[in-house]
């Protein structure tokens, strides 16, 4: 039993180490190092020896001294097994090994005798592996987007693997793509339009949604249940089936290529979600507070303005951010309704840029960075509000 779990432990842990080192190697390759072999087998083998040494030594020496010396020996072995590599790369290997051996801390010859230890080992390392895997798969495209915007098309065609940035160049050289898209492709204007449309959508949506959500949450009227179920159904309805009728009607009314037209459509499509999110929150406000307001002779308008809104600022904030992100990211309607570069939103402008096969990719990626940064910034900064809003059962893209 003990040897079976030992074997599983060695294989799984070494497999995990091999995976992180391969990712490290891939990242290093993208810095222009010319590795041509992942060397999976030798790394896996010395990984097994590393884990074996770790559990064999056990508690005989201090943990810190143990992991440092083991990682050091491993790095030196790695250095000799691999193609010549610079010292920063080997230092990275050393740090990774340090992290890895530190994770092994809870395993010893004793602990390998516990119940279900092999399942626990598998679970432990799958968790670690999963986290590294997910983080890599998600962040990698964002990383590529960012670094491509600093490179040039020619350099990337010559060596598609060299994403190293030359910081000795002056900043204007480095940020050249950004200057070009602002100067030649008018991105300043598109940022303004996108911001205007998104902020406008937020304001108009709130103006319509707060009263409606209040009525749904608090007042009794005929058709209320019907209304709340239709809210749910409507936001299931796809934009793609609205596109053709809206296109024809907007063409005839002259609302195409107008920011106003876009604003109406965005507001109408985000309203159901906004009402749904807000009414849920309004219901949680104690009714007694409003009763006090009624006693003071407030009318409904006063109650909404002076009691409901101040009390539900967090919910309103989360709805606003949410609506802002939907409007900012929206693409389908801006594709259909805007064909004059004068009224493009950022998303539409980037798509328009890509339509020209001659457009160098770094401009495309610089545009992408510009359209992505604000939403990621908002998201990271206000994550708490947004996540609670998302999980309130309201989801819309």
């Amino acid at each position, binding site marked *: 039993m003990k040897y079976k779990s030992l074997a599983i432990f060695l294989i799984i842990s070494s497999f995990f180490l091999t995976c992180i080192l391969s990712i490290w190697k891939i990242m290093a390759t993208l810095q222009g190092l010319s590795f041509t072999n992942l060397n999976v087998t030798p790394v896996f083998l010395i990984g097994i020896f590393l884990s074996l040494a770790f559990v064999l030594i056990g508690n005989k020496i201090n943990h810190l001294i143990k992991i440092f010396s083991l990682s050091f020996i491993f790095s030196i072995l790695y250095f000799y097994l691999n193609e010549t590599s610079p010292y920063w790369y080997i230092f990275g290997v050393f740090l990774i090994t340090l992290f890895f051996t530190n994770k092994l801390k809870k395993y010893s010859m004793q602990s390998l005798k516990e119940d279900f230890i092999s399942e626990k080992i598998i679970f432990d390392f799958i968790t670690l592996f999963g986290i590294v895997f997910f983080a890599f798969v998600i962040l990698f495209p964002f990383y590529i987007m960012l670094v491509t915007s600093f490179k040039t098309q020619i350099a990337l065609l010559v060596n598609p693997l060299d994403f190293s940035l030359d910081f000795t160049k002056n900043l204007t050289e480095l940020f050249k793509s950004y200057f070009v898209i602002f100067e030649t492709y008018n991105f300043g204007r598109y940022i303004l339009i996108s911001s205007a449309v998104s902020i406008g959508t937020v304001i108009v949506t709130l103006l319509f949604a707060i009263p409606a959500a209040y*009525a749904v949450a608090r007042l009794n009227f005929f058709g209320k249940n019907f209304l709340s179920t239709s809210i749910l159904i409507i936001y299931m309805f796809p934009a793609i089936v609205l596109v053709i009728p809206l296109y024809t009607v907007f063409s005839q009314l002259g609302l195409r290529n107008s920011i106003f037209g876009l604003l*109406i459509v965005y507001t109408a499509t985000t309203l159901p979600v906004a009402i749904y999110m807000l009414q849920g929150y309004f219901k949680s406000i104690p009714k007694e507070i409003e009763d006090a307001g009624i006693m003071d002779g407030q009318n409904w308008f006063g109650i909404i303005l002076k009691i409901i809104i101040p009390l539900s600022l967090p919910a309103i904030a989360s709805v606003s951010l949410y609506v802002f992100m939907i409007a900012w990211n929206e693409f389908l309607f801006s594709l259909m309704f805007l064909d004059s570069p004068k009224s493009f939103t950022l998303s539409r402008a980037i798509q328009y840029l890509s339509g020209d096969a001659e457009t160098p990719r770094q401009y495309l990626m610089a545009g992408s960075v510009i359209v992505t940064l604000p939403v990621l910034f908002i998201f990271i900064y206000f994550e708490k509000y947004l996540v609670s809003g998302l999980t309130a059962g309201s989801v819309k893209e």
Partner: protein
Amino acid sequence: MSDSLSKLEKRTAYTLVLPAVLLVFAIVLFPIFANVWISFKDIELKDIRIPEPRAKKIVESISENQSELKIIYKLRNSSLIQEIKNVQFQDKFPTNVSPVNLDPRCNFQTKKVICNFGNWQAKYRENFEITIQNYNGEKIDKRIIRSQKPILSGKADNPLLTTNFTLENFKKVFYENNFVELLLTTFYFTFFGTVGAIIFGILAAQLVNQNIQGRTYMRGILLFPYVGPVVALAYTWTLLLDPNSGTLNALLVNFNIIEQPINLLGQKYITMSILGFEFKLRLALTTVIFFEIWRYFPLAFLFILARLQAIPQTLYEAADVDGASPIQKFIHITLPQITAIISILFMIRFIWNFNKFEDIFLLTGGASGTRTLPINVYQQGFAVSDIGMGSAVSMVIVMLLLSFMVIYFRLIGKRANEV
């Protein structure tokens, strides 16, 4: 007393709700009905512009005599296919100015010329001239004449509003449109995209729910693909997957994992052999599905994580006392707790994936076997310019969606409120 109060309450409620309802009705519900109408009409993109009479005004001097001017109106029918009936024309002039030798179709009233041009055929064009003269012999200011724009009006049929209907669009949808393949592609995309997103969502939620360091950061990072703008993400992936200079292919070739770059987004089929069985994989479709999973698993992750965190820890402690293994704990405690949310997620994501347009459009444009129903709406309506046909495809989507929703509410609609 209470009766009047409840009346007041009702009236207030309607006032509060009405603006939102009207807006949603105009932009969301009305188009769905309009779709039904358009789908039965033979109508093309060029038909939807209402034809209008137009005039471009050009002012010229005739001679040295500055009290006389010639005005040329370049008149035309903006439509290439439709007639405009009963075109009326009107232009204003300053005081003391009158036209000379006015066209018989027109007459001069104080300070304005009104003409009745009758009917204009499609593509109608005419250069219409008026010579004006100041009868006091004073100079006429050209700028004033130029700044006055003529007003034209006319009646034209709006092809959208006529009542000739046809079943041709639906015939074309079902018989000339590769309908079965279209439907199959849509279902592959929808089903595997949904299932994949949920599986990865469960995995990610299970990971983040462990006691690991920095799990709030991890939760934030995992949501990046979901909150990022689709245009930016799709183009980044297109670049990554590019066969000629894309990073992914370059890496795989560099490390000798593949010999030749693979055109992941441009190749319809790839032949794979596993255990001696050869089969064809829809390559581009699979890639698009993986992008879809990458982009939408965060949503499943978020919902499942919220549910996982609500599971009482005591259940796991009790299982530990009973000596349950991690796998047993997952199967017997975790899974039953998340089945409800998974079934809801499945339906929501199924419906949304079914309608997904942007992702496929930006990645492949619907080429190499990735043509789904929403892509087809766009292709028919805007690439082929057949609005009626596009509408008919939309109708197919609506009908399928309605049936999904009926199933959804029958099966789990009631349970949705409990979760």
